[in-house]
């Protein structure tokens, strides 16, 4: 009885807790945020150029694509899946979008709109296939997306005959390097995607069931929900985000090549894991993913400013990934967070 009364008293707090924002989750995200802050302080003190507006917008630009891919990856990992195909899909989406973008005599606005549609559409189709094949035949997504990794890369090469597409409309390219108050517009787009993903995951029935599936599929199925729908949807969302990332890539670098994006899936997975999402599914937030992407970006940039070689940087990033998982393990054991 006492427990019941206590519950009613703390109702106001509870409302927020239910939606994925429990103090525990908050604490976990805060911990990752703290790590990011320490990194920033460290590099600010250690190097001259780190905290300059120029460098900051540079970092933000650099992490944008990884962040967009990682947001999609968060959906997939939350249901206990993995998507190894996003790097190849990025190339495939880019060459499809790039082909549309370079159709001669098309007004710029229409060309960009159609290209976006084509790139996102390509991502949606690939993502849908990933999800549907693994859900329908009950295959591990690791295998299915490994297949898609090859299919999409091959398709990208086939479509372009291994050539690079360039000379996009100048205004499209200008958009890619546009700034608002020193913040790259493309990063703002990524932030909007993070906000939408956060809302979907923490406030909607859809998000609730993704977490549910990641934790206990059978319980969700027996409660009358179609696993197929949610699994396919998670992969399709990841695919759509790859399409958006491909457009951002083209806007920034002014090319679409069938060999771009190699290894991007691993960077996206790293951001998600550093952000505290469990590879087993069912646990994690997209805010964590945002912080995770920032950590990898800050680390890469700061280490270069320190004068470390790219090889050293890669090794240190690897150490950080492993450290993040170890810390997570202890955090779980010590605090039950």
């Amino acid at each position, binding site marked *: 009885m006492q*427990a*019941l009364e*206590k*519950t*009613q008293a*703390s*109702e106001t*707090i*509870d*409302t*927020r*807790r*239910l*939606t994925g924002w*429990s103090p525990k989750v908050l604490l976990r995200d805060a911990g990752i945020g703290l790590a990011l802050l320490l990194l920033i302080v460290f590099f600010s003190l250690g190097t001259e150029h780190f905290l300059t507006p120029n460098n900051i917008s540079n970092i933000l630009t650099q992490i944008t694509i990884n962040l967009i891919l990682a947001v999609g990856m968060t959906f997939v990992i939350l249901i206990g899946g993995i998507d190894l195909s996003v790097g190849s899909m990025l190339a495939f989406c880019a060459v499809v979008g790039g082909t549309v973008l370079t159709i001669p005599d098309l007004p710029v606005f229409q060309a960009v709109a159609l290209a976006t549609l084509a790139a996102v559409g390509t991502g949606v189709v690939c993502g849908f296939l990933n999800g549907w094949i693994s859900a329908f035949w009950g295959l591990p997504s690791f295998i299915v997306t490994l297949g898609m990794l090859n299919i999409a890369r091959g398709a990208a090469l086939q479509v372009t005959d291994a050539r690079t597409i360039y000379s996009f409309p100048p205004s499209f390219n200008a958009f890619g390097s546009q700034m608002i108050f020193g913040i790259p517009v493309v990063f703002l787009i990524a932030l909007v995607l993070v906000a939408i993903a956060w809302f979907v995951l923490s*406030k*909607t*029935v*859809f998000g*609730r*069931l993704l*977490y*549910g599936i990641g*934790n*206990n599929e*059978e*319980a*969700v*199925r*027996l*409660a*009358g*929900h*179609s696993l197929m729908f949610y699994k396919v949807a998670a992969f399709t969302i990841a695919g759509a985000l790859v399409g958006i990332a491909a457009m951002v890539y083209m806007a920034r670098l002014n090319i679409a090549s069938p060999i771009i994006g190699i290894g991007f899936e691993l960077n996206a997975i790293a951001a998600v894991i550093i952000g505290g999402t469990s590879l087993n599914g*069912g*646990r994690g937030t997209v805010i964590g993913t945002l912080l995770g992407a920032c950590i990898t970006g800050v680390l890469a940039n700061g280490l270069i400013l320190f004068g470390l070689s790219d090889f050293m940087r890669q090794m240190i990033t690897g150490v950080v990934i492993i450290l993040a998982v170890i810390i997570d393990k202890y955090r779980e054991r010590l605090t039950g967070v």
Partner: protein
Amino acid sequence: MINVETVRADAAGVLTPPVLELHDVKKAFGGTKALNGVSLSVQPGEVHGLIGENGAGKSTLIKVLCGIVRPDEGAINLSGRAYAPTTPREAKANGLQVVHQEFNLLPYLSVAENIFIEHLPRNAFGVVKRQEMNVGARAALDAIGLSDIDVRWPVERLGIAHRQLVEVARALMTQSRILILDEPTATLTSRETERLFTIVNDLRSRGVSIIFVSHHLDEVFRICDRVTVLRNGETVFSRPIAETNQDELVRAMVGRKLQQQMASEMVSLARPEEALSLVQFRHPQSPHAEGISLQLHKGEILGIAGLVGSGRTELLRAIAAAELPLSGALRLEGAPVSFRSPREAINAGIGFVTEDRKEEGLILNMPIAANVTLASLSDVSRAGILDSKAEIEVTQRLGAELKLKYGGPAKNAATLSGGNQQKVVLAKWLARNPKVLLLDEPTRGVDVGAKAEIYALIRQFAERGLALLIVSSELPELMTLSDRIIVMSQHRVVGELSRPEFSEERILQYAYQGEQQQARH
């Protein structure tokens, strides 16, 4: 037989020194005192019952004894020497074996490999001597009378009851002085339980001491020489079995007088209207064309009895469309229905409380409120957006109705005791206001106090006109709850009893008869 008597006399006497002695053992996890002064003394060749409600400290005590958890305070003596194991291996080396409640078998390895996993017979090159291992495993299984399985089968092929017995066989492989059986009968039917008791008697006669943890008091009275009751981490009671009775034990466990409603006092609440009927309903595992036919009325509680493997769980799963039925007709409130997915069954008004709460019923790492609303999310959302307030209201309303003891709607379901977890599962279905509720082993792993509460709730549901179909391996439970019991054997209905005809003997007779008929075919 004579041997047994002497050992028993020894156990009752004061002359023999105890093989295991615990004095004021304490253990706290954070702020929670899991053990708060446990004292216990086990004689050689004694079957020592250890009982208590869930959360009373039994599991922690076992973990202390087998070296998984180290106590904060207190003394443990094994055969007169101080005993403080730091690893399970050390506990085993000291002759202490545990058959755990949760299964520790490796599903893809063979039965023989599982039995020998700790000391596989190897030749000089480290290659496993398969022949020797299989022969040894065969002997181990024969020793406990488990002759109907092949030692080369992978464990995943075995049913839950057989797995439990394989665990027992494995524990017996090593010479042990003390064998701890943690809820060994929870998954066994009466037939296998009998088998286990024979094994226990045999071990006792060989001087092995057995600590028998159970929720079933009748079993404790049948098999134990002495019984110790834990409550809130303390020993509250320890006495030879002959000097106590069931009422006293229950009182010691719950710490209050429990009002046990007797079966005979209950009145059937069945109404004339039909809620659910099956006509020649077959699930995919059923070998018989005639399938199962039965009728369930509104407000009626229909119990399904039968041995493990008689097709009870499969029947419920097929009705709920968890597995699609093979053939036959289903009528809900007179209208023919056929479900192609659990979703369709749920929408039509069927709720299904599964046998395995942790694997299929609950999402342990998600909030209680999220579990309660899992099957009725459309009621607590608008346009796909969740209304947390509504979720909490539903949880608090049903929580109060079901007398759920919980820290708050946002606490994870994993924080609850077994009984309260089961109440969350019930709440999940009540939130949908179903017409028919299927319950598979509704009180498995639930302590005595919570059991009585769940029984009362089930009766309440029936009063409201809900039709209930209950599968249970505990016959007293079925006889307490049901208005009518059907007995299943080999996927057929072999008997039906109305309330005045209820008796354990009759139910078992039906169940075994069906079995024997099958054997003759």
